[in-house]
Each structure stands twice: as structure tokens, then as C-alpha cells.
């Protein structure tokens, strides 16, 4: 479904990603893990169109998307949930969710999607008329993920959903992402929380200093000596 082929990308003259190649198949739950500042978020920003790659190709559903405007990539079926949510803080939960369905013209479909996301996140149904700026951190994450679902995406890119959350909320968010994949949504997750991530995803890539250094099934990665030592604290 998604394929990156030898992609370089960065911010102006600052190159961050080097020769990144990865793929995500339909229905998979794939993680891109690594320490802080290695290019995980840059990878998602490049796929979503917020950053143009300086080299390489990105294809989605056999269509090249590198260099396309962000809104066009969204219309193709990619939804990007950023680490800070990019929420519209002065607008209500309901308004934010409806904006998530901006690309959908079918009003009945929007109503159906809204019902589904509120069933997935019942707390948001209670907060529907509340301004997003007044919500807690965990609730804002839920709004961000729920809003990302409202475009009925084929692929969701989720950036560090556990950032700033209490452990119990981290589990709840991860479980909701797992639930999404059971509903047929393909998810590419970026996380620093390697331990929890590798317990729930199907496959993973490890990125260090802007390059993919390891890839494999979550089981293989959990048993990899480098991963065990560097990320799981197991000697």
C-alpha cells in the first residue's frame, strides 16, 4: 500500500532522512521506532506531504505522491495524526471531528463516521460541545485520533501518541489503534516507547541517525540483541 524507496528528506539544508526504504501492506500495523531526533517524525511529515523529499520516491496505492500538495495526499486516503494533534483549540470537539471529514461530501457517510468514532471514544461524546483547548492531554489525543479517522482513511500515520500521557492512558490509546487495524485501517505508528509498541504491532522498522538499521516482525525485533540492549534495557 505504501512504499518509500531510497528517500532523502530534511529541513532546508539540514538533511535528516538518508536512503529510507520501507513498505506498509494493507491491513498491517507497522511501527517506526527509534530514539529522539533520528527522523521518525520527519518520515511521517514527508509521507504526508508536509516535507518534500530531496531524493527518492514515495508511492501509495501504486501512485506516486512525493511532491504532491498535502491536501491532495489527504484526499487519496492518508490521514496524519501529528504528535501535538494540530487541533483547532478554539473550536469544539464536534467541530474538530466534522473538519476531519472535510474531504467527504456525503452527509450520511459523515454521520455514520461520527457515530463510529464516538463509539470508539465514548468520552468524546460527553465532551462534544466543549472547546478543545479546555480538554486534558489524553482527551486531546483522543480527539486527534478520532479526527484522523473521520476522513475514512486507508492509511493512518500516527506520531508518538503516547507522548505526555500517563501510562494507563498510553495503553488505552494503543488499544484503540489496535482496534482500528481490526476494522481494516492500515496504521503506521511512530514511537519512542519501543517496549509497548513492539507488543502490539505486526512489524517494525528501527531508525537511527536518519537511516533504517533494522526491520522485522515485532517478535523478531523483541528478540533482537541490539533492541533488547538499547531500547528494552535487557542485557
Amino acid at each position, binding site marked *: 500500500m505504501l512504499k518509500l524507496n531510497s528517500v532523502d528528506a530534511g529541513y532546508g539544508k539540514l538533511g535528516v532522512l538518508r536512503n529510507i526504504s520501507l513498505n506498509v501492506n494493507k491491513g498491517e500495523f507497522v511501527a517506526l521506532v527509534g530514539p529522539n531526533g533520528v527522523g521518525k517524525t520527519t518520515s511521517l511529515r514527508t509521507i*504526508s506531504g*508536509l516535507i518534500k523529499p530531496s531524493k527518492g520516491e514515495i508511492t501509495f496505492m501504486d501512485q506516486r505522491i512525493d511532491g504532491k*500538495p*498535502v*491536501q491532495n495526499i*489527504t*484526499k487519496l486516503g492518508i*490521514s*496524519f495524526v*501529528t504528535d501535538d*494533534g*494540530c*487541533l*483547532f*483549540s*478554539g*473550536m469544539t470537539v464536534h*467541530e474538530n471531528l*466534522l*473538519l*476531519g471529514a*472535510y*474531504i467527504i461530501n456525503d452527509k450520511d457517510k459523515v454521520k455514520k463516521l461520527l457515530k463510529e468514532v464516538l463509539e470508539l471514544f465514548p468520552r468524546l461524546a460527553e465532551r462534544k460541545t466543549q472547546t478543545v483547548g479546555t480538554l486534558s492531554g489524553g482527551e486531546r489525543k483522543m480527539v486527534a485520533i478520532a*479526527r484522523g479517522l473521520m*476522513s475514512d482513511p486507508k492509511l493512518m500515520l500516527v506520531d508518538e501518541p503516547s507522548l505526555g500521557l500517563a501510562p494507563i492512558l498510553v495503553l488505552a490509546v494503543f488499544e484503540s489503534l489496535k482496534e482500528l487495524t481490526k476494522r481494516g485501517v492500515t496504521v503506521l505508528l511512530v514511537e519512542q516507547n519501543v517496549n509497548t509498541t513492539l507488543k502490539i504491532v505486526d512489524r517494525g522498522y528501527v531508525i537511527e541517525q536518519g537511516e533504517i538499521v533494522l526491520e522485522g516482525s515485532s517478535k523478531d525485533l523483541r528478540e533482537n540483541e541490539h533492541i533488547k540492549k538499547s531500547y528494552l534495557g535487557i542485557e
Partner: protein
Amino acid sequence: MDSAVVSDILIGGVLRGGMYVLMAMGLSLVFGVMKIPNFAHGEFYMIGAYLCYFSVAVWGLPAPVAIIVAALGAFMIGAIIERITFYPLRKRSQGNWILNSFLVTAGLSFVLQNLAQGWLGVTFRGVPQLWGGTLAIGGMHISMDRVMAFGIAMSTVTVFWLFLKKTKTGSAIRAVSEHETGAKLMGINLNTIHTLTFALSCMLAAIAGAALLSIIPASPFMGLQPLYKSWFVVILVGLGNIEAVIIGGFMVGIIEMVASYNFGAGFQDVISLSIIILVLLFKPSGLFGKKLKV
């Protein structure tokens, strides 16, 4: 102060304030969404007045149609101007955006004023009335033209507010003003929203100019006064706060009437500006303002 004077001040202040709300709303919208301090805003008021004049006095159209012509004409002119000025500026660089866009609007103001002067001359072009008659309110007889101008202003503001709150496009405009990256990720085309926003802002100013044509005739430099008043309102309530403009417009209108009654018409700007300065000393972001990310 006896009740007749109070009525006089209130009614006059409300009628005046209604026009300020309409003018200031467009200015606040452009700043809130596009981060452009538009110093050419008064020129679209001027364009509206001229379009209304030609519609009524030259083409013989009825007043309601003339107002619509002014609105649509300014909308199209605003859209074209946005595409040939701010769109290429945005593509080229967003560094020093507020200063650069301000300079563009200052240049635009000169160009539009001088185009109007060169093409239409400096003669004031007005009409004796758009609607005719008077209305008795609280013992006063107010010209129907003033009442209709107020009615048009309030209807326009209401429709515009409903458009922003209840429509998909209106929500998209608000989303862009809140978080541009977030809006892009929702599939919103920022360039389309920016052009639409600027065109709507010009349209709002033009409706004000058209509605007041029989009271303030059209002339090339007529836009300065409404521009200043709009800035008074926007700065008082806080840059980019579109809803608060409704309260701010009426506040400035009433403050001016009170100042005018007590100190004379020449002091109304001095008093209203002094109050605005005092407010800003204690609350620099304006009465209802929030810190703006620039």
C-alpha cells in the same frame, strides 16, 4: 443628562456602531486568517461606494440591486487582487510576513486611490437618497437611509456569522485561522481559503460603502476615515477576534457619540483613541484578545 439626550446618543451610537462592525469584521477576518494587517481595507469601502453610485445614478438600478452589484464587484476585485499580490508573496517567502504584507497593502492603497482619482476625478459622486423618508424612533426622526444602512449592516453581519459558524467553508476558514498545518492535513486548500477570505473581507467593506452612499458620497480618498475606525475597533477588541468585533463596533460608536455630545464632534476621535490607549496599557492584547502566534 435627560432621557432625550440619552436616546439620541444611544440611537446615534448604535446606528454608527453597526457600520463599524461591518467594516471592522472584514479587517479582523483578514488579519485572523491571513495574518495581513490590511491598510487598503478603506479602498474597498470606496470601491463599494463607487459601484453603488454607478449602479444607481448611471445605470438606473434600484438600491437593493446596486448594493448587490457593489458586493459582488468588490468580491471579484478582491479575489483578483489577492491572486496577483498576496498569493505570489506567500509562494515566494513567508519570512517577515506581517511587515511585508503590510507594505503590500500600503502600496495597494496608494494604487487604488490614484487609479480612482485618475479615472474618475476628485469630484464627489453621491445620490440624494437610496431609500427616502424618515423613521420615528424614541421621539427622533431618523433618515430612512441611515436606518436601512444599519439594517443592511446587521443583516450582512448576521448572514456572515452564520456562514462562518454553520457552513463547511466557514468552518474551513476558521480552521485556517486556528492552525494552518492542521487545516492542510484535513484536505483544506489554503490558497483557495486565503483568496476567498480576502474577497469576503473586501465585499463586507464594499457593502458598508454602498449602504452609506447617500450620506457619504464617493470620492477617491474616502477610505481613510473608515479604515481608521475599523482599526480602532479591531485593536480595541484584539487582533483576529472576529466575534468580539460586534461588541467593539458598538462600543466605539457609542463612545464617539458620548464624546461628541460632551466635547464636540472634533473630539470624538481623541476621546475614543484615548480610551483605546488606556485599555491597551492594561491589556495589550485587547479587551477580548489572545496572544497571537506570528
